[in-house]
C-alpha cells in the first residue's frame, strides 16, 4: 500500500544488497529514465538512493519495483529506519567546530613545543601571546556546544559531564592569560584547545549514533483509510471521510482497500488479511456475520458491512494507543556514560577545589593555586570517557551495518547487552512468512498448466505463490477461458466447455487427504493438491541454540493457532510457547515477564507485534516487516538469516565489555594523574601527553569491537 506522501518530497529507498560501485550508474540511469523522475542519486556509503520526483510522478512502490526488475532489492526509508545523513545540520555544525578546534590545536602545539624545548623569557612570552591569539577565539567558538549544555544543566539544577569540561576550559583560558601577562612559565592554552578537540570528536561520534525520533504509533495511523464509501438509505453510494463515520452506517469495501472501521459483514464473501490481529498474512475467508476490524486488508471480493466502532473506538486505535503508551513508558535507559558522569562530575570539582584551597593556604600565592587547580581539572578531564563510549557505539554500529543490521541508537545497544530473555514471534520472524509451497505435483504433472492459468486470475496470496512457482519452474499456463474469481472460494475457468476450479478443497470437490491447502481440478476429472506451509528460516534452530549458549532464555509467542505454533517451537528447539495471542495479550505477557525481573528482547515483524516491540527492553525486527514493527524496533536486520539476532547480541555484549574496560583504563589513568597534579608536578607538557596518551589507548581498545564474529 503506498504511503500518502506529497509527491515533490524526495523519496528515499534503502538498497540493502548494493555492494559495488559498478551498480551506481545502472541504478541511476534506470531510475531517471522513468517519466516523472527528476533526479536519482545513489549513496553507496549508507546504501541508499534518493529520488526526486515531479508532482504526479511514480511513488515509492513503483520505484522499488523498477529496481527489483534490474535485480536490486529496494525498500522504502520511513521514519522507521535511521535518518538520512544528508540533511544533518547539527552534525555538520559539529564537524565545523571540530575543524576549527583541530586547526587551532595543531598550531598552538607547534608553538608549545618550542616553549617546552627551552624557550626563555621574551621568546617564551611572545609564543605564549601568539598561542593566546589562536587558542582563545577557537576555544570560544568550538567549545560552544559544551558551554550550552553545561548552562542548560546548571539552570536545571543538575550536573552533567559538560560542567567540569566547561570549567576546565574556562579556567585554563583565564589562568593561562594571567600567567602570560605576568611572564609566567606555564600556560595551558594547548591543553585547553586540545581538550576541546578530543571531546568534539567524541561528541560528533555520539551524535551520529543517536536516533532520530520516529513513532511506531504514527506508522499505525498510516493504515487507517481516510475515505470510505457509504451506502445511503436509498441505495446510492457516496464517499465519506472516515472521520464522519458513525456506528450503524452501511459501507462497501472494494477488493484491495483497507476496512475503514470496525464492523460486521452484511453482504459478500471475501478473503481478508488479518495480520493486524493474528499476525498471519494467510488470508482468512469471511462471509456475512463475521466481525472485521479497521486496518485489515480486503483481498478478493467486495463486501458490505455495518459499522460497529469508528475512529478512536476501533481495534487499530487501541493498538496505536498501546504502542504509544509502551513507547512512553519504556523508561529512560540509564546509560553507562551518564552513570559515570553522575559520580565523576562532582568528584572532579571537589578535588579541584581542594587543590586550589590547599595550595593557596599553603603558599599564599594565588597564581600558583590557580595554576595547580587548572592542572587538576585538565588532567582529570574525561577525554577517555567522552571519547570511549561514543567510539564503542560507532564501531559497534558500523560492525552491525556491515552485516546488514541497522542500529537506531547507541542506547539500544546497551539495552541489548542487558537482556536475559528472548521472545520470538512466529510468522515472518522465526519463519519465512506464510505462502510457501510445501507440497505440489511434480513440474511435469498436467495440473501445473491449469493451476498456473487459474492462479493468474486471482490476487489471493496463495494464488500468487502458485503463479510465482509456476513461472520459476518454467510452466506455460494452459489456455483457459471464462476466468472468474469467486471470492472466498477460488477461481474457475473453462477448457473445452469443461469447468475447472482452483481453490478451497471443499469447493473444488472431494479431496484425498485433509482440507488444508488448495485443490485444482483437472480436465480428466482428477484432482491435484497444493499445500502451503510456513517454513522455518534456514538457520532458525541454530540461532535459538546460539541464543541459549549466550545464557538467554528463548520463548515463542504468536497470534496463530496452537498446532502450528507448537510445531514451529518444536522445530526451532524452543521449549516455551504461547499461541492465539492478540496484540494486547502479547503486551500483557511481556509485562508479566518484566514483573518477574526479566529483561526481554522481542523479535517480531507484524502489525500485531507493534506494542510488544515498543514495550520490550530491546527489540529487533526483520527489514521485510510491517512499517509499524520497524518503527517500534530498536534494530532492523535485512536478509533471510535469523542469525543476525545472535550476532547483534554478541556485538552488544562485546561493546559493553569494551566500554567497561575503557572506564577501567580511565580510572587507572586518573588514579596516577591526580596525585601528580595535586603535588604540583604537572606541567602543560605532561598534561598534553597524558591527555593524548589516554585518549589513544581508549580508542584503540574501543576499536576491538570491530572483530566480533
Amino acid at each position: 500500500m503506498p504511503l500518502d506522501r506529497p509527491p515533490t518530497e524526495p523519496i528515499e529507498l534503502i538498497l540493502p544488497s548494493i555492494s559495488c560501485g559498478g551498480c551506481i550508474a545502472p541504478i541511476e540511469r534506470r531510475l531517471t529514465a522513468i517519466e516523472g523522475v527528476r533526479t536519482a542519486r545513489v549513496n553507496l556509503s549508507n546504501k541508499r538512493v534518493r529520488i526526486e520526483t515531479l508532482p504526479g510522478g511514480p511513488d515509492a512502490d513503483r520505484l522499488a519495483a523498477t529496481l527489483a526488475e534490474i535485480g536490486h532489492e529496494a525498500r522504502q526509508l520511513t521514519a522507521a529506519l535511521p535518518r538520512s545523513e544528508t540533511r544533518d545540520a547539527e552534525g555538520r555544525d559539529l564537524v565545523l567546530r571540530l575543524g576549527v578546534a583541530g586547526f587551532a590545536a595543531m598550531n598552538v602545539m607547534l608553538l608549545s613545543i618550542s616553549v617546552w624545548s627551552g624557550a626563555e623569557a621574551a621568546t617564551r612570552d611572545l609564543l605564549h601571546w601568539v598561542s593566546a591569539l589562536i587558542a582563545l577565539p577557537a576555544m570560544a567558538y568550538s567549545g560552544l556546544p559544551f558551554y550550552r549544555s553545561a548552562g542548560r544543566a546548571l539552570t536545571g539544577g543538575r550536573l552533567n559531564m559538560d560542567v567540569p569540561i566547561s570549567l576546565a576550559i574556562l579556567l585554563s583560558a583565564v589562568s593561562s592569560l594571567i600567567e602570560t601577562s605576568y611572564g609566567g612559565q606555564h600556560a595551558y592554552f594547548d591543553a585547553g584547545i586540545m581538550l576541546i578537540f578530543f571531546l568534539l570528536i567524541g561528541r560528533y561520534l555520539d551524535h551520529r549514533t543517536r536516533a532520530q525520533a520516529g513513532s511506531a504509533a504514527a506508522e499505525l495511523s498510516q493504515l487507517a483509510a481516510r475515505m470510505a464509501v457509504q451506502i445511503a438509505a436509498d441505495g446510492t453510494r457516496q464517499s465519506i471521510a472516515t472521520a464522519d463515520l458513525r456506528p450503524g452506517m452501511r459501507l462497501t469495501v472494494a477488493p484491495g482497500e483497507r476496512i475503514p472501521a470496525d464492523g460486521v459483514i452484511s453482504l459478500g464473501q471475501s478473503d481478508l488479511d488479518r495480520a493486524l490481529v493474528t499476525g498471519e498474512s494467510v488470508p482468512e475467508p469471511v462471509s456475512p456475520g463475521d466481525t472485521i476490524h479497521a486496518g485489515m486488508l480486503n483481498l478478493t471480493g467486495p463486501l458490505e458491512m455495518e459499522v460497529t466502532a469508528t475512529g478512536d473506538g476501533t481495534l487499530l486505535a487501541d493498538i496505536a494507543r498501546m504502542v504509544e503508551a509502551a513507547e512512553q513508558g519504556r523508561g529512560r535507559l540509564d546509560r553507562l556514560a551518564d552513570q559515570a558522569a553522575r559520580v565523576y562530575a562532582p568528584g572532579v570539582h571537589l578535588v579541584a577545589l581542594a587543590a586550589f584551597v590547599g595550595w593557596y593556604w599553603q603558599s599564599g600565592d594565588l597564581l600558583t593555586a590557580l595554576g595547580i587547580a587548572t592542572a587538576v581539572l585538565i588532567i582529570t578531564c574525561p577525554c577517555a570517557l567522552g571519547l570511549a563510549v561514543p567510539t564503542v557505539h560507532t564501531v559497534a554500529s558500523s560492525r552491525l551495518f556491515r552485516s546488514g543490521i541497522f542500529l537506531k541508537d547507541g542506547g539500544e545497544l546497551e539495552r541489548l547487552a542487558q537482556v536475559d530473555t528472548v521472545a520470538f514471534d512466529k510468522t515472518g520472524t522465526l519463519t519465512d512468512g506464510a505462502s510457501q509451497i510445501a507440497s505440489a505435483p511434480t513440474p511435469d504433472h498436467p495440473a501445473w498448466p491449469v493451476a498456473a492459468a487459474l492462479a493468474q486470475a486471482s490476487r489471493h496470496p496463495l494464488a500468487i505463490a502458485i503463479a510465482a512457482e509456476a513461472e520459476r519452474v518454467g510452466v506455460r499456463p494452459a489456455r483457459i477461458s471464462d476466468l472468474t474469481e469467486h471470492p472466498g472460494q477460488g477461481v474457475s475457468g473453462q477448457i473445452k466447455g469443461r469447468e475447472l476450479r482452483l481453490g478451497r478443497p471443499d469447493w473444488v470437490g472431494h479431496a484425498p487427504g485433509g482440507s488444508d491447502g488448495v485443490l485444482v481440478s483437472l480436465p480428466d476429472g482428477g484432482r491435484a493438491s497444493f499445500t502451503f506451509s510456513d517454513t522455518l528460516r534456514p538457520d532458525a534452530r541454530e540461532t535459538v541454540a546460539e541464543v541459549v549458549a549466550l545464557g538467554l532464555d528463548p520463548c515463542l509467542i504468536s497470534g496463530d493457532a496452537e498446532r502450528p505454533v507448537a510445531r514451529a517451537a518444536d522445530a526451532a528447539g524452543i521449549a516455551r510457547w504461547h499461541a492465539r495471542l492478540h496484540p494486547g495479550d502479547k503486551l500483557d505477557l511481556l509485562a508479566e515477564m518484566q514483573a518477574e525481573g526479566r529483561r526481554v528482547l522481542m523479535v517480531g515483524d507484524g502489525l500485531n507485534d507493534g506494542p510488544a516491540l515498543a514495550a520490550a527492553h530491546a527489540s529487533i525486527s526483520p527489514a521485510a516487516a510491517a512499517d509499524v514493527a520497524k518503527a517500534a524496533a530498536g534494530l532492523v536486520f535485512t536478509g533471510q538469516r535469523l542469525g543476525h539476532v545472535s550476532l547483534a547480541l554478541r556485538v552488544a555484549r562485546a561493546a559493553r565489555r569494551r566500554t567497561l574496560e575503557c572506564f577501567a583504563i580511565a580510572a587507572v589513568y586518573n588514579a596516577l594523574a591526580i596525585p601528580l597534579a595535586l603535588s604540583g608536578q604537572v606541567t602543560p607538557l605532561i598534561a598534553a601527553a597524558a591527555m593524548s596518551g589516554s585518549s589513544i589507548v581508549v580508542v584503540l581498545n574501543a576499536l576491538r569491537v570491530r572483530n566480533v564474529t
Partner: protein
Amino acid sequence: MTVIGYLIPVSLFLGGLGLAAFIWSLRADQYTDLEGDQHRALFGEHDDRPSGE
C-alpha cells in the same frame, strides 16, 4: 630570532588556507558519500557535482 616574527604569521596563513579548504569541502557536501564518490570518479559520464542537497 626575529625571523620568527615572519614565520609565525606565514604558518598561520598557510594553516588558515587549509582550514578554509576544509570548510569549503564540508559545505560542498563532499563527505556525504565517500565510497560512492570513489567509484564515480571512474565513470564515463561526469556530472561534476556531489549531491548538493
